[in-house]
Every structure is written in C-alpha cells, then in structure tokens.
C-alpha cells in the first residue's frame, strides 16, 4: 500500500548573505494513513522548516533544492501554486501552530477564523460554515456560544484547542502539529495532547508531531524521527527508538530527560552546541560533539541504514558500539 505522505531526499535551503543555510538537507520519511510520527530535535535543527516546506509556505529566501514530497502518490512540490492552495492546504494537510501565542489573528472572531477555512475550501454557505465552526468548537470542549469571542478572551489552553478545532475544519488527512503544547503549562499540555489523540483516533487522521519534547512524542506517536542539523539521524518505531537508541545523538537526547521513576541522578547533557548550518561539518554532522567519533566519522557522511530491523533506521558508523557511551557516562 502506498503511504499517505512520502518525503524523499528533501532539501530546503535558506539563502542568506553568507551563503545557504541548509535547514533541511536530504530528509526522507513516510507517514501511513492513520499513523502518527514524531519529529524531534534541538531548536534550529530544521524541524519547523520541515513543516513549512510540507505546506509550501517558505519565506522569500527559502527554496527547495532537491527531493520530492508525494501525497497519496501525487507529487506536490511541482504542482501549480493555485491548485496546491485550493486542494491541499487545509483540505488535505492542516497545521497546528503554537496557538497559545500568535497563531490566531487578534482582531478577528475565533469562530469566523474557523469558518473562513470551510468557506474557502468547500461550497458551504456562510450560515452552514458558521454552524460547523460552532460544532468544531464543541468538539474540542469549547462552548459554541463563544464563537464570537476574540483570541484575547480565551485562555492559552482554550486558544490551543480552538487552533485544533480549526485544523480539523476541512477533515484533512494529515495534521502537522508544530510544537502544539510548548507554551502551555504541564496540566493544560496534557489536556491538549489528550484532545489531539482522541480526535485523531476518532477521525483516523495521520499526524506529524514536531517537538523538542521527547516525552510529548513518546506519549502520542507510533513512530519517531530524530533530526540533527538538517538530517534525520535515527528513525523507527517509537518504542524501539526510546528503548534502544542506536545513534549517539538520540541516546544523548533521551538521557538528557530525567526519568521520574529512576533513582535520582544528574541529568545528562550533550557537550558542545549544534553546528552552523551554513557550513555543516564534513562527514557525520554530529562528529564534533560525539564521544565515539573517529577519522571515518569526520570524513564520510553516514547514510540512514536498516540496522535494528523492523524499520529501525540509523545514520551512524558506530551504531553498534553505543554501549560505550553509556559506560563513559
């Protein structure tokens, strides 16, 4: 069966005065129908650029250099803008931004912002769209009487739920959630995640969840891709990646989160800082920070390879030797 979303060797660069920032540099992954994938990594590793690339919403200095994105087998990168706007944006793929911040227009009514998406994509009358927007609000637990409220009249969690309702407005096949819970406090975060999960299961939606918070991904995703400096370094079923990370970076990332059940121990951090994406290091991009790196790592770029079985892929020359990292720590 064909995957819902197939991304192949995607490269997206931002041109700046000093050259190209290689924000997404040869990324491939697939999302099946109904599946949820987490995209994790540090700030600035290219996660959010991935989201804007999928919806073709690049800023003026961003351009797609190579690769393909297929949605239901249909190439969407080369499609005429007007067709993509009308048939794909929101209709097939919608996005949940950090709504607690500024994803909603402060001077327009919340309900109208939802209804607007319906009117744009479907032959719905205004009254019909309004009614459906009200139903969507109810679905995420907001009284439809608050249709006429403005964003500043909502709490952070309510705004985020309104943004989720908006994302569901046109019954999309795929939802891209870009740090959907980052600005929320932990209690609200849990409620919002639960709401997303419920609706997703009910409607059979696929999701790509972008987050720097691995616990959020662990809670919600079937599959996880760990991104480092514009590339995916480890990719596979969430359970396998979490229980047995094979890439030193993934290992470092996972051990930088405290485990509340384990005995108290200092939180691990990864020494050094992410590379400059204008001139990424040669060879493996993680090599300057990697405790296992040797001459080969610094010259030959590792490919994503099947190493763990069951779709567990990793891009590391030292993938088998991870035990040593643990010993050092």
């Amino acid at each position, binding site marked *: 069966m064909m995957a819902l979303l197939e991304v192949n060797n995607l490269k997206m660069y931002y041109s700046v005065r000093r050259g190209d920032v290689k924000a997404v540099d040869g990324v491939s992954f697939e999302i099946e129908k109904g599946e949820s994938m987490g995209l994790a990594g540090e700030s600035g590793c290219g996660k959010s650029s991935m989201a804007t690339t999928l919806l073709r919403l690049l800023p003026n200095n961003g351009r797609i250099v190579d690769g393909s994105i297929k949605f239901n087998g249909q190439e969407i990168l080369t499609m005429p803008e007007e067709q993509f706007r009308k048939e794909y944006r*929101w209709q097939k793929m919608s996005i949940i*931004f950090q709504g607690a911040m*500024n994803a909603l227009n*402060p*001077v327009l009514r919340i309900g109208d912002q939802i209804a607007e998406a319906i009117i*744009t994509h479907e032959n719905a009358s205004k009254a019909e769209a309004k009614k459906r927007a009200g139903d969507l609000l109810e679905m995420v637990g907001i009284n439809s009487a608050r249709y*006429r409220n403005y964003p500043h009249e909502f709490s952070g969690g309510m705004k985020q739920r309104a*943004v989720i309702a908006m994302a569901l407005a046109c019954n999309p096949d795929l939802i891209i959630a870009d740090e959907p819970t980052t600005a929320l406090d932990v209690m609200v975060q849990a409620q919002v995640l639960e709401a997303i999960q419920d609706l997703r299961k009910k409607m059979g939606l696929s999701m790509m969840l972008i987050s720097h918070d691995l616990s959020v991904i662990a809670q919600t995703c079937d599959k996880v891709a760990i991104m480092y400096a514009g590339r995916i370094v480890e990719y596979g079923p969430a359970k396998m990646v979490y229980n047995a990370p094979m890439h030193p970076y993934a290992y470092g990332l996972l051990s930088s989160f405290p485990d509340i059940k384990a005995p108290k121990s200092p939180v691990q951090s990864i020494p050094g800082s992410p590379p400059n994406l204008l001139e990424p290091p040669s060879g493996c991009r993680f090599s300057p920070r990697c405790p296992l790196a040797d001459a080969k790592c610094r010259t030959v770029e590792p490919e994503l390879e099947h190493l763990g079985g069951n779709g567990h892929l990793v891009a590391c020359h030292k993938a088998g030797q991870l035990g040593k990292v643990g010993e050092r720590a």
Partner: protein
Amino acid sequence: MNFSSYILRRVVYALIVLVVIVTINFFIFRVMPGDPVRMIIDPKWTPEMKAALYEQYGLTKPLHEQFFIYLKSLLTLDLGLSFTSSRPVMDELLERLPNTVLLLGIALFIEILIGISIGIFAASKRGSSIESFVTGAGLFTHAVPTFFLQLVLLLIFGFVIPIFPIRGTMAAPPPVGGWAQFLDRVHHLILPVFSLVVINFGSWALYTRNAMVEALGQDYIITARAKGLTKKRVLRHHAFRSILPPIVTLIFLSLPSIISGAVVTETIFSWYGVGRYLLDATMKQDYPAAQGAFYFIALATIICNFVADIVYGLVDPRIRVGGGEGK
C-alpha cells in the same frame, strides 16, 4: 470598566486639555511683544483717541478680568470682534471655513486613499524594486518643502503654461450658472490639492507599508496562508484588518487639519481660508481673531481626538470595553 465610565473619563480628559489650551491661548498673546491697536490707529491720532480705543477693546482692564471676560464669551461661542475688521470673529471664521474644508478635505481624502493603497501594494511586493521605488518616492516628496513645490507648480502651470489660475478660491466675478461655478471651483482647486497630495501621500504610504510589513511577519499570517486563503484575502482580511486600528486613529487625528487649514498652502495660493486668516491675525496682533481661530482649531482637535479614542475602541476588539459580549 464599562463603556460609559470609559467615555466619561475621556470627556473629563478632553475638558482638562481644553482649559489648558484656552489659558495658554489667552496669555500667549498678552506676553507677545507689540501693541495690538497699532495696526488700526493712524499716527495722527491723539493719545486721548488711542486711550479711548484701548478702553473700547477692554485692554485697560486688569489681566485677570480680561481673562474671565474671555472665558465667559468662549462658553457662549462669542469670539468677539476682530480688531482689524470690527466684524464678529465667528462670522469671519465661518465664512472661510467651507473653503478650507473643501481644499483640505479633498486633499486629505485623496492622500489617504492613494497613500494607503500604495503602502499595501509596497508591502505585498516586499524586497522588490517596485517597493524600493515607492518608499524612495514617498520619502522624497515628503522631504520637499511645501512652499517650494507649490511655487514651482504655480510658476509652471500658472505662468509659463497658464492653464491654472495663480490665485484665489474662485474667479472674480464668479461665472454665472451653477455648472460654470462648479467647474471654476474645481479649476482653482486642482493645483493646491495636487501639491498637498504629492507632499503628504508619502507619510501615509510609508506608515501603511511599515505596519503591513510588520503584520505580514506575524504567526497568524502564516496560519492564514496555511489555511489556503488567497493572497488577496490574507493581505486584506488578515493583515490590513489588523493594522486598521492605528490607521483609523491616524485618520481621525489628521481631521483637525481640515479645519485648521494649511497656513503655507493657503497663503501661497491666496486661498480665502482659515489658515490664512490665522496667519493674518497673528501678524496684525488681532487678539480676538487669532485667539478665536486657535480656539476653533483646539476645539476641533480635541473633539477629533475624543472621537479617535472611541473609534479605536470600536475597531480594536482588544481594547473594546464592555461590548456586552464575552465571558
């Protein structure tokens, strides 16, 4: 805070400003050097005649008494008699007001329309050469001194190629017939309106462009685009709508200029309006006339600011107070 107490606070605030302005307006002419009756007396007059004139205009009374008389007459909208023409200042102002409102109202309307459209257009073409041209042109025309541009226009289109009248509000004597009179007014309006639009459209265009560029960089614009809205709708419904509150405020704040007139423009085009009246009155130390004109302008400014405050509240839901809806 509910809406009526909000309005009440604005009213009190406006009244305080009014009292301060009126007070300054009174004393500023008293401390100015010069003698107000100098302009109307003949050097041959005897000191007794001069004293009588002072007496007649109330200038011999103590200052505080003059002040209270002044306050009392302001309340009844009695602006007194002009020293130079001996006619009621109110009549003189009302006579000139339509001319000024016509000239500056039309100019302001066109400036705003052109300026805002150009600003939105420039913002939508961010980074292109069209945008640089528009910003450059706006800055340049805004920097040109008003009198210089107007004199050049007069020289070219009034003198070298005499297709427009060089002075006045209408032909003297006015042509016969409504239609002919209308055309005559338009004919006299073209040059001054054109020059004002050229000078002023830039600030509207630049302001709109900057506000739009900022708005277009907001997260909710990405959301709007992600929703698959057309470019036009994102630009007008989302970006422009969000900068509307400050723009509307600016429009209201610029309305008083319609009444106060453009002193330079009216002087250069010999326009029979409030601006030139103010200038003449000040030059001739015609206290009642100048004070009256200033009072008039201050009143208009305060009223427009007050309205701007209210309208801002209506167009920006974030400061809309007690609208009846909500939690």
